[in-house]
């Protein structure tokens, strides 16, 4: 096992797990809490990376993260605006924004399909220079992304228990109740989607600085991968407080990256991974349905067997 799975592989899997966990947290907000499938996730992730990369390139790696968050909020606002004020169905709103973002992203990167950041400072290189402990040397990237995820996780757990957070949760939980109380569901959906897309874009910006490059196709399939992480996380933790659920989502994302790293070590081609994520999501989401079907099937079998034994009646299918 040690030859298959070294410490450095575990370390980079955890680093990526933490970075991508922000997207999983974004889907936790939009998909699990608000009950909206936000399909603009792919484009928004690339948007965050592109905006972040361009600002980093101009020498402001910290400002890059803030700019990416701002861009994410704008993208989320447009998706929310289309579905709350323009009567566009929510799935379609996400697809429309996602398509539009492709052009925006190319434009942000100066009409080129990729940008590299090898020559400039990133939050990682700056942090490395500032605190040169010997033990810190090899772990600094993980420490930085852990700190970011911890801060975001605590913020989310706090936010979802404020009155605004409670209102957002109620909006996804019981539409009738929300309409009968004084909560404006349209405003709550807007706030929720802005926050979710801010997290997605932040994740993209951090990944860009982490791998020192940005590519137009970076976000492809991101929504499926994040959903896989989210589902793994939710099945790990189950029911519980918001903080527990948030921790579960981060854990799920890390676990997903470890699975990917293992698969890569076993010479599974990298191109196959998207298919693997798709299968994980399809199986995980259909599992409760199939379980119910199976229970019914067993019941029917037993019931028929019972009557056949009693009076030999032939049952039509």
């Amino acid at each position: 096992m040690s030859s298959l799975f070294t410490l450095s592989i575990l370390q980079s899997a955890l680093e990526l797990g933490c970075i991508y966990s922000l997207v999983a947290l974004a889907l936790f907000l939009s998909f699990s809490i608000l009950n909206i499938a936000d399909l603009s996730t792919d484009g928004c992730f690339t948007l965050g990376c592109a905006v972040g990369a361009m600002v980093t390139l101009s020498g402001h790696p910290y400002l890059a993260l803030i700019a990416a968050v701002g861009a994410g909020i704008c993208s989320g606002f447009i998706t929310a605006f289309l579905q709350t004020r323009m009567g566009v169905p929510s799935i379609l709103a996400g697809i429309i924004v996602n398509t539009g973002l492709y052009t925006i992203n190319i434009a942000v990167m100066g009409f080129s399909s990729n940008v590299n950041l090898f020559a400039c400072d990133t939050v990682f290189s700056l942090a490395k220079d500032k605190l040169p402990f010997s033990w810190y040397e090899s772990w600094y990237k993980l420490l930085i992304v852990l700190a970011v995820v911890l801060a975001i996780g605590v913020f989310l757990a706090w936010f979802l228990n404020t009155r605004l957070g409670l209102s957002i949760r109620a909006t996804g939980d019981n539409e009738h109740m929300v309409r009968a109380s004084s909560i404006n569901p349209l405003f709550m959906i807007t706030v929720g989607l802005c926050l979710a897309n801010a997290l997605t874009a932040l994740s993209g910006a951090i990944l860009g600085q982490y791998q020192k490059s940005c590519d137009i196709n970076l976000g492809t399939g991101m929504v499926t991968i994040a959903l896989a992480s989210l589902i793994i996380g939710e099945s790990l933790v189950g029911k519980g407080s918001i903080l527990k659920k948030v921790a579960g989502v981060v854990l799920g994302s890390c676990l997903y990256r470890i699975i990917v790293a293992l698969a890569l070590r076993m010479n599974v081609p990298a191109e196959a991974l998207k298919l693997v994520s798709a299968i994980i999501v399809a199986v995980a989401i259909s599992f409760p349905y199939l379980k119910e079907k199976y229970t019914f099937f067993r019941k029917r079998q037993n019931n028929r067997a019972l009557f056949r034994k009693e009076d030999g009646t032939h049952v039509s299918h």
Partner: protein
Amino acid sequence: MLVIESVSKTFHPGTVNEKRALDQINLTLADGDFAVIVGSNGAGKSTLFNAITGGFFVDEGRIILGGEDITYSKEHVRSKVIGHLFQDPLKGTAPHMTIEENMALAYLRASTSRHAYFSRISTSEKRKFREQLSLLDMGLEDRMKQPVGLLSGGQRQALTLLMATMVTPRILLLDEHTAALDPATADKVLSLTEKMIAERHITCLMITHNMHQALTLGNQTIMMDSGRIVFHAAGNERNNLTIDNLLSQFRLRAGKQLNDDKILLSK
């Protein structure tokens, strides 16, 4: 005070499904009035409630609540001063949130400032919620951290009632709110409702299929048919009514027999 003036609503106009759901409704309720509405299915009772809560905008007429014209105000704006209970006990509460969180949401109506957005449920509020829950006498005060989805229908309906009246509404709308409960629980929820309305002097409109309730609860009885109010009794006129009187009044005013099994069976 609730004033409804010549309110009409037609659904699907110009199609084969066209239905005049409300037809020139006029109704005035003074503060503290408690009117019970009966009528067969499709008479427009729930539609009238939805017109008041803003589920749709009416075609004609206007609705004035507490001196304020709310005919075109948005649903979430006017729901600040309207309490609404549905027949389905699942509709009034958020199942995946705790009892405490549900109550905090209902209590949001009390806060007028936007700063309250980022505040959390305070200890004094928790104490207050606990006291109110103990009034229900259902042991819910010890289950405040549990998700509402674990409660029974009756418990959820009692909680919804508590939430709807936490901030005294200008009007409380009860849409057959005990019809889906078992008889014992229904009685309990109903007596809680009566107690709250009497104590707080709440103006109330209640829909029922139970003729006995229509005559004994509150101080007014209203009968609806085909989107119209066909009979409205209050005071002495109402005190002298019997169920048979009421049915013959319906026959007289609506020009047909009241043929709703649910109502006739409840005789």
